[in-house]
């Protein structure tokens, strides 16, 4: 029999970026807030200190910071007609866990989306006509615009100490930045990262071909920085152990470095870790949440009553929690009725391995998580698609986040997978090879969705999340086109071998691509086709808010976290200035 605890004002499920920031904002107004985190406490000291943290086997290969797959896996199938089977180990994407969530082990690639992204359907129809889209695509408008979110992007970037150079300051194009970015109201808080050798070579080649290279914006500090919360971060030393690892230098923006110490000081906030939330409880009307049930590490179950529930447990877990709790109607791709689980999307990644002459020592192991020189010329709708027959695009990045040897030992095509020749090729090419990274839009599609698995369960006996996903044909055509363009830049760099490697289907869970899982609890203006309104409030249960990349109706070319930051502060504002004053539907 679960023990019922004393009621609190707010329960936050999942204490990552979204959970930390929302908890801090609400606790600061005087509300009492409980943060429930299923993972462990971890801090920069001792948990992220080098050299122990620079353990590629433990953290990259064995996924040391990731969700415990033995207790909480997911099932997967490409097609609706197939039987989904468990992902018995994480490979293609790596959901995190633990205090700080993915904010601990992300790279720090911090982007804004384009103006067009937020009105993507309207934009595409207006520019290319209603008949342009493949019939199975389901792209939608967000119901909130870039202009509305701009001040909140700014706030998040200053919280994180983002490093970059503005390319579009209030409509004026600036030298040195991204001329194709959406307009921003002020400069980045810190100057850009130091450029890598590979990036410099790419910069020249891309410029020669008429493109507009710039340094990727980064949540890795480029100088000592004190953020608006009064927390000081140190400059990044380009150690090459960023994604999948915690940062030893207090140089990567993570909840631990940018906000948690402030949150933890507030007596209104209580953190409970190793607390597995099982479901959000609803009253008999089904329209009001009464709190959550969770289980602690000793296996004891508690009911935590609360007036307001914030679901911030990472995109995929958010969708699962809604399904387990019966909030919103589950999506059925056959009937296209229902909303929870619909519009699941991803990131369409491709690569151009670029083998350079052996006297060019790239030193790719010298890298910040967001190192890279980029062109935005082929992202989203930054180029004319009329004659091309697809929508979407990729940013093209050259640089490295690491050259950790188990993960990175490129060999040219035709090299055997093992033996003397393989060994020689690895030795010869390790320090002279750049891999372009193309990060592509992912269009929502009728048959890509999330629901609950009928067979497989987690350690608490609850159904696993089931993912049904394959790349829409549109996105594969897009990938072919942009990857081909990127290969031209590689050839312009004087490479000896260039491998044009677009994304091809089917999507496989067996090799890493990206942890940009989006959708499933999407934002929108119409409750028939979205789960949350423009304030991230669920249509069905007004005292439940969901903030995560699960809100995205489709995924843009860019890494999602920057936009999530904007949504977090936008939602915080809506909670503080509207909801708390008049609890109830905000739309």
């Amino acid at each position, binding site marked *: 029999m679960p023990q019922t605890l004393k009621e609190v004002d707010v329960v936050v499920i999942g204490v990552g970026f979204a959970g930390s920031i929302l908890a801090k904002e609400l606790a600061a107004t005087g509300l009492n807030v409980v943060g429930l985190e299923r993972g*462990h406490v*971890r801090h920069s000291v*001792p*948990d992220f*200190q*080098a*050299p*122990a943290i*620079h*353990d*590629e*086997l*433990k953290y990259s*290969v064995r*996924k*040391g910071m990731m969700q415990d*797959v*033995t*207790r909480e896996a997911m099932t997967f*199938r490409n097609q609706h007609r*197939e039987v989904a*089977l*468990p*992902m*018995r*180990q994480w*490979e293609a994407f790596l959901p995190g866990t*633990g205090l700080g969530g993915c904010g601990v082990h992300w790279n720090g690639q911090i982007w804004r989306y384009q103006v067009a992204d937020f009105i993507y359907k309207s934009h595409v129809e207006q520019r290319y006509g209603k008949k342009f889209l493949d019939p199975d695509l389901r792209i939608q408008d967000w119901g909130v615009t870039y202009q509305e979110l701009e001040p909140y992007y700014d706030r998040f970037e200053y919280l994180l100490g983002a490093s970059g150079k503005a390319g579009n300051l209030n409509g004026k194009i600036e030298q040195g930045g991204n001329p194709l970015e959406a307009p921003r109201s002020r400069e980045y808080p810190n100057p850009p990262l*130091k*450029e*890598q050798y590979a990036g*410099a070579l790419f910069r020249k080649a891309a410029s020669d071909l008429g493109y507009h290279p710039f340094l990727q914006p980064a949540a890795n500090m480029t100088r000592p920085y004190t953020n608006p919360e009064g927390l000081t971060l140190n*400059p990044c*030393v*380009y*150690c*090459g152990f960023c994604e999948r690892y915690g940062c030893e230098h207090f140089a990567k923006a993570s909840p631990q470095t940018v906000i948690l110490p402030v949150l933890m000081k507030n007596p209104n906030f209580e953190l409970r870790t190793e607390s597995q939330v099982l479901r959000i409880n609803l009253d008999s009307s089904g329209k009001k949440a009464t709190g959550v049930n969770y289980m602690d590490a000793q296996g004891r179950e508690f009911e935590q009553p609360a007036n307001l529930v914030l679901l911030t447990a990472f995109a995929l877990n958010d969708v699962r929690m809604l399904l387990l709790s019966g909030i919103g109607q589950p999506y059925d791709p056959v009937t296209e009725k229902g909303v929870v689980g619909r519009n699941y999307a991803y990131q369409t990644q491709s690569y151009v391995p670029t083998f350079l002459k052996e006297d*060019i*020592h790239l*030193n790719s*192991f*010298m890298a910040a998580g967001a190192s890279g020189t980029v062109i935005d010329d082929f992202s989203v709708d930054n180029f004319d698609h009329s004659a091309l027959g697809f929508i979407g695009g990729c940013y093209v990045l050259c640089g490295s986040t690491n*050259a*950790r*040897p*188990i993960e990175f*030992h490129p060999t040219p095509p035709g090299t055997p*997978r*093992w033996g*003397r020749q393989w*060994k020689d090729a690895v*030795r010869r090419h390790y*320090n002279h090879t750049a891999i372009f990274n193309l990060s592509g839009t992912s269009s929502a599609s009728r048959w890509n969705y999330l629901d609950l698995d009928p067979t497989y*369960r*987690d*350690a608490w*006996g609850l159904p696993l999340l089931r993912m049904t996903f394959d790349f829409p044909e549109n996105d594969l055509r897009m990938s072919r086109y942009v990857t081909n363009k990127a290969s031209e830049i590689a050839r312009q760099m004087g490479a000896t071998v260039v491998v044009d490697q677009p994304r091809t289907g089917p*999507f496989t*869970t*067996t090799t890493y691509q990206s942890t940009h899982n989006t959708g499933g609890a999407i934002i929108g203006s119409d409750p028939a086709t979205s789960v949350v309104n423009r304030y991230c409030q669920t249509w069905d249960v007004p005292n439940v808010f969901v903030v995560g990349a699960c809100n995205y109706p489709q995924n843009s070319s860019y890494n999602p976290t920057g936009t999530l930051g904007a949504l977090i502060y936008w939602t915080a504002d809506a909670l503080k200035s509207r909801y708390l004053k008049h609890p109830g539907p905000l739309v």
Partner: protein
Amino acid sequence: MGEGPNSNSRRNFLRSGLIAISTATLAGEAPALLANPRSEVTPRFLNESERRFLQAAVERLIPADEKWPGAAEAGVVNYIDLQMAGQWGKGELLYRHGPFRKGTPSQGYQLEYTPAELFRRSILAINAHFSTQGKSFDQLPPAEKDAYLTSLEKGGIDLDGVPSNTFFDFLLKHTVEGFLSDPIYGGNKNKIAWKMIGFPGAYSDYYDLIDKHGVELNREPMGIGDGAGSPSMNAMRGGH
């Protein structure tokens, strides 16, 4: 093979505060210890015939050449032994609830064998295959070894329930890991693989070097075990 949701007390204990380089004495858990690194560790999992097969096989996968040692000399078999004896080998990092069904290639590993079981079954089957012919893998001339490994890699051979290409990919993956991982895990002896490719290792402050494009960094690689502190210091290092 099904386990109840709360039968993981030992693994939870493992997860609650130990790191790979702690000096804890859980059997099969600690890799080559910081305080007393030894290049050859008492075998923990592999039996003699498994060792012999693996030593010969990994040496074909990453052979020695005139200048650089190969997988055998780098201690890859030692690495595999330790891994199979530990959490990973025992399947404690995999979701192992049934039902087990054959999946599509996109669905990845779906066999019910733990990594250690997979190794054991496959190598037993391979060794049995050779002993019926009065031979053993390690005694074959190199070209025949390579031919046999290639036949495993191609697939189509059943190794007592393990498809041979699944075993081969597994073996190759572990060989590469054992060659290139930090020496605290028992392989990459003397950081030989890192020296070969020019990877400087686990100590990596490049603030002053990253913008010196093309600088040749000719320094001894440094690994996690190089900064061993006093025993009380090592006991303090915790975290997840």
